[in-house]
């Protein structure tokens, strides 16, 4: 079983449109792989918008421990505020913390006024380190976890899909990415699938590192713009850092030919294979609005033909065992 991850360094390059096209092409009768799909962009999971999945199992994702101060026990010594390095604890006399306190008081069983002048934890700023818990001399602080998202196993029109949604303003997206990938992998191993196709998150930080780990190959979707070239460099450095073989395809290749040439020259220099140039094509957006992969929506569109070509090259390279 192999794992292919689609990355971009930046959002909006067409990663999900490429992943959706691959999912469609991989479901065709003559496809070389039986595939499990995983959407690892848990912040902005868009793959489901084109695959019309039917949710089979839904599980909550707990994480994001945060501290809470019991005002009945608190002696207002200020130690917790001193030890917190995340500026997550503050006295209610500070405006930001006053607003929090007002909300908490309003939500309590016995709303009181005035608002007590005691320290309060901003759960969004709290990193969950619990330093305050251990330093509090009167044990007034405890840690709490909360449901911060959900993950799903679905049946999509192109096979099993694992995806998730993280609630806004929550952390631990790297952990949720790992979980989604793990579940996809387990199913693939259990039911003898050949490939796990992962639609990756943007950037190079924690969720991307989670998405890249264990991958056999990364397909990087690059845009031929001044910014796109810069992003591609950073993501190629990241895949190299983790020892994952990378391929590049250039999306909207014709909007700025000089940028496309720059990408090709850079890839040649770094011995990274460029596996295709997808032209700028408004059909891709039309397909997205219709909730369909472009290769299904308009198989003869220039973008679809280019994607078929990219897909052919990628699957051939995967089959030939580029990575042990």
């Amino acid at each position, binding site marked *: 079983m192999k794992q292919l991850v689609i990355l*971009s*360094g*930046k*959002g*909006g390059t067409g990663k*999900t449109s490429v992943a959706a096209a691959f999912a469609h092409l991989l479901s065709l009768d003559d496809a070389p792989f039986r595939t499990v799909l995983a959407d690892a962009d848990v*912040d*902005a999971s*868009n793959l489901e*918008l084109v695959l019309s999945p039917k949710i089979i199992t839904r599980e909550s994702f707990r994480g994001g*421990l945060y501290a809470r101060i019991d005002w009945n026990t608190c002696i207002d010594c200020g130690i917790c505020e001193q*030890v917190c*390095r995340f500026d997550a604890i503050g006295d209610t006399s500070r405006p*930001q913390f006053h*607003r929090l306190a007002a909300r908490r008081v309003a939500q309590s069983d016995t709303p009181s006024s005035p608002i007590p002048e005691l320290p309060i934890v901003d759960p*969004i*700023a709290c*990193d*969950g*380190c*619990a*330093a305050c818990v*251990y*330093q509090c001399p009167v044990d007034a602080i405890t840690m709490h976890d909360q449901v911060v998202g959900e993950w799903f196993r679905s049946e999509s029109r192109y096979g099993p899909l694992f995806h998730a949604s*993280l*609630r*806004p*303003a*929550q*952390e631990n*997206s790297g952990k949720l990415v790992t979980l989604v990938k793990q579940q996809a992998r387990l199913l693939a191993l259990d039911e003898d699938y050949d490939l796990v196709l992962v639609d990756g*998150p*943007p*950037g*190079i*930080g*924690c969720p*991307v*590192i989670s998405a890249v780990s264990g991958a056999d190959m990364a397909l990087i979707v690059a845009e*031929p*713009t*001044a*910014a*796109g070239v*810069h*992003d591609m460099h*950073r*993501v190629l*450095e*990241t895949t190299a*850092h*983790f020892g994952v073989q990378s391929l590049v395809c250039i999306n909207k290749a014709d*909007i*700025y030919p*000089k*940028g496309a040439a720059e990408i090709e020259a850079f890839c040649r220099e770094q011995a990274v294979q460029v596996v295709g140039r997808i032209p700028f094509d408004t059909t891709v*957006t039309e397909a*997205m*609005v219709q*909730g369909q992969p472009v290769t299904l929506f308009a198989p003869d569109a220039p973008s679809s033909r280019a994607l078929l070509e990219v897909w052919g090259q990628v699957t051939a390279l995967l089959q030939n065992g580029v990575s042990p």
Partner: protein
Amino acid sequence: MIIAVASGKGGTGKTTVATALAQALAHADISVSCLDCDVEGPNAHIFIRPTLDHHKNVDLLIPEVDADLCNGCGKCAEVCQFHAIVVLGGQTLVFPELCHGCGSCTLVCPEKAITEVPRTLGILEGGLSPDGINFGHGLLNVGEPMAVPVITQLKSWRDYMDAEVVILDSPPGASCPVVESVRGADFVLLVTEPTPFGLHDLRQAYELTQEVDIPAGLIINRDGIGDPGVDVYCQEVGLPVLMKIPLEREIGQGIAQGKTLLEIHPEYQDAFQTLYAQIADLAANGGDR
């Protein structure tokens, strides 16, 4: 006034808007600084073209255990929520990549065997642009998972936050790096494209602004593609649409070459100044909520 530009989804034109707003204000002689908080893939410098002559490492203080003083009691490992310290066979080991730098271990060590040493996560770069924008950005080192400390330190770097207007170009998404970017902002300017993908991610981003309790407004970029979903949503939730930038090949090509929106279409100067006035208004009213 601090304005954070955010979007949920990448590639919607956040940087296009942030740089155009910064330029428009600078041209109107308003003191402005622009901080690119997308430390995983910063791009604003390509358009603003600052002379990046200020540099500063982003260090996180992580524990170092003095083996002579350590008696292997394991208190440090017990309090570490991130499994960054373990005690094996009486030896205390630190895993730097897992450490969040909270200092809890140092505080609890009864033998005072732990000191904190800096570990470099990335770098800050800053300088002035030709049109007088005080610019700064952070670069997360490749292979480094934690973007948040880089953003935190960028936002507290030098006198950037002293300008009359501070524009923060946020990373995509709606999780911790974005929260860290918009924290303390007076207004969040959301940017989206009018497609189902754009709408899906806009919901997340708008909910985030609600969660952190900061007033928000929207710019629709590439207006003309997609469907009316975004407009309908904005009406439903009462999110004001402050500007629409049409889908235009000329704009796309110009930006691909590293030009700003104001360089491609100088007539946007007035539109962005008006936008600023609207934002100031909304931020003032939002503060009363």
